[in-house]
């Protein structure tokens, strides 16, 4: 798991991950690259991350992938990420195509629902919590 301040260097990350698994004999490599769209007059998105829980979440996915013969990787930005640059890359490596296609879908969807990351629109230099696009993590409401 890799965290960066500001936008990701997508090429460097993609290329390095490719090289890291060059000799691992995986048949399928599926990265997912998330890029900030220009919409609603935003200048950037901004992210807070709670790293200890993100690391546990990621570690559990490493084990889940291993049990299916696969490997997962991810990188995410902290702080401001301007429009048309990238905040998120995840990837699956697997011997088999079907496992890779299923895993990238599950991994990205669970990331959206349960990775402890908070998103803010940046408009006129102000940081506004993206409440309407945010999802309560599983187990929410315990203290209410």
């Amino acid at each position, binding site marked *: 798991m890799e965290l960066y301040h500001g936008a990701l260097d997508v090429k460097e990350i993609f290329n390095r991950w490719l090289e890291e698994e060059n000799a691992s004999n995986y048949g399928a490599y599926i990265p997912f690259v998330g890029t900030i769209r220009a919409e609603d007059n935003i200048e950037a998105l901004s992210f807070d991350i709670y790293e200890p829980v993100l690391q546990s979440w990621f570690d559990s996915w490493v084990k889940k992938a291993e049990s299916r013969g696969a490997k997962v990787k991810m990188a995410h930005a902290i702080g401001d990420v301007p429009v048309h640059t990238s905040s998120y890359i995840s990837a699956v490596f697997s011997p088999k195509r079907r496992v890779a296609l299923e895993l990238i879908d599950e991994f990205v969807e669970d990331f959206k629902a349960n990775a402890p990351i*908070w998103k803010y629109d940046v408009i006129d230099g102000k940081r506004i919590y993206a409440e309407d696009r945010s999802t309560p993590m599983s187990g929410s409401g315990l203290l209410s």
Partner: protein
Amino acid sequence: MVKVEFLGPINQETLEIEAKTLADVANALQEIETVSSWLEKCAVAVNDEMTNDLNKVLNSGDRVSILPPVCGG
């Protein structure tokens, strides 16, 4: 004393409170105006481990984290 920290957009400094279980934390937080409206949609971690157990026993020095709705990517 346990520490209660509020993550992401919740505008509240870390609190120190007396609590023997998470239920005690719930009772205390429900009394705080800036925090109570968040509780319904927040998940909870104790010492960085997510939990669903309101009866979880807390020890002095434990850290309770309050995690509001997320949106990575």
